[in-house]
């Protein structure tokens, strides 16, 4: 399934400073749907090139990272259980503190 993944707030530095990635990810282990849990693992394996601890902690994103599925906080759609559809846009953004 075709997805657009975006990284911001410094997370792009973990994937070769590229902010927008158009990717094809298929449902894992013969499941009918792809969920965010699968996608995180896929991103971790395929896109994160350095300091993976800056992206994930345990089986989810590290504290301070907001995940947005189609411009909506993943807390509102079921977090790791959020199931993804064709052409969804998933944004990973690190919170900023500077000023």
């Amino acid at each position, binding site marked *: 399934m075709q997805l657009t993944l975006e990284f911001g707030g*410094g997370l792009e530095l973990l994937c070769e400073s590229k902010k927008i990635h158009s990717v094809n990810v298929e449902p894992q282990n013969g499941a009918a749907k792809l969920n965010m849990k699968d996608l995180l693992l896929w991103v971790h394996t395929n896109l994160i090139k350095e300091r993976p601890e800056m992206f994930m902690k345990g089986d989810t994103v590290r504290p301070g990272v907001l995940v947005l599925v189609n411009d909506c906080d993943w807390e509102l759609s079921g977090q790791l259980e959020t199931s993804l559809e064709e052409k969804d846009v998933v944004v990973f953004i690190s919170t900023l503190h500077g000023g």
Partner: protein
Amino acid sequence: MEFNRGDSEASRILRDIQALKDTKSGIEHKLSVLEARLQEINLQDDAVSNGSSAPSSTVDSGFGNGLTPDMIYRYSRHLLLPSFGVEGQANLLKSSILVVGAGGLGSPALLYLAACGVGRLGIVDHDLVELNNMHRQIIHTEAYIGQSKVESAAASCRSINSTIQIVEHKEALRTSNALEILSKYDIVVDATDNAPSRYMISDCCVVLGKPLVSGAALGLEGQLTVYNYNGGPCYRCLFPTPPPTSACQRCADSGVLGVVPGIIGCLQALEAIKIASKIGEPLSGRMLIFDALSARIRTVKIRGKSVQCEVCGDHATFDQEQFLEFDYEKFTQSPLSASPLKLNLLPSDSRISSKEYNERIINGEAHVLVDVRPAHHYKIVSLPKSLNIPLSTLEGRLPEVSSALKEEEELNGIVSDSTAQLYVICRRGNDSQRAVQYLHKMGFTFSKDIIGGLESWANNVDRNFPTY
């Protein structure tokens, strides 16, 4: 001789500059005394006219809307807006807003809040104006370099609008003073630059029931949202666990394009004005994300108030007493002031001062100097004959260190049983220690770190060496 003439002319110019500077600071002093006196008189007038926020014309115009003729003229373009109008302006004039931080975000926020006629505007900061602030902290002028940011910002605000009350809080915000300061205002604008301050200000706003307009900027990106407003989330609802310190980059390390915090600061002023004047839909439960390079602004929906939030949730017991006890620096493992980290990773015999290093150069000691800063830092300024190997690439480039040492030994005719020395430098002396720690492990046990890095070199050896 040509040389002497140039010399004496330069010293004459220097004398003239100094004389003019002395005159200027005398005038500035007189100005600030007069400004302070005027402020006092205005405050007294305020008290006499029973809290009216228009000291320049304290008599009510009698037109029934509470606005004096001066106010009507000054704010006429606001009054002409059907969705803002007299009511919006009157609400603004009655409101009080506190801006925490007179830096990159606070500068434009304060200028607009002063200009638009917020009744009472508070400014908190403990810092001094520095030359490297000027590219983004546009409220300050060169004349204020070395002086308090709060004084500088207050003077700029007063020069734009002398009819509002401006309150100077020249201190760092801490748990010990935050409750007292924030309680005097209706709305709080977080324009700080570090994680512990953000948690502390949000918690304090929850405890006091104040809406919080929160902005942040770094590099070429910015973020903005309103917390603790109308049943919306607080900062902790969104970020219950603080991020690792390595994820909290500072503008002083990572850089920031000046106009980026400017844009976010303007939007913070706008959100504060909307809340104060009771117009529109404040950015609560939503977050604005700004990417300068692609010129994209996206507004996303974020979670609402979290039932489990430890500070604002349904079962939270967080109160003023707990706030006073809470250690925000320990919680986030970073200091409340954005002061740079000072590591101490090495035994003292593996470190030398910048002065000692200078003596060794003068004595012609055979050595290699490795500069472990990122390449774009190295391009700004570097010591002659240093070898740039960024810390992140050191692991793969150890052979280069070995061959540089060998070359230096051959050049100096050193025989096999002694070796050239190996020194490591960086900007402030943290990464150089990390590098030396690694080099020790990899067999370069004689490598030493230069304490305090290039900053120390500039302060203690070569005053003309640029700092950044």
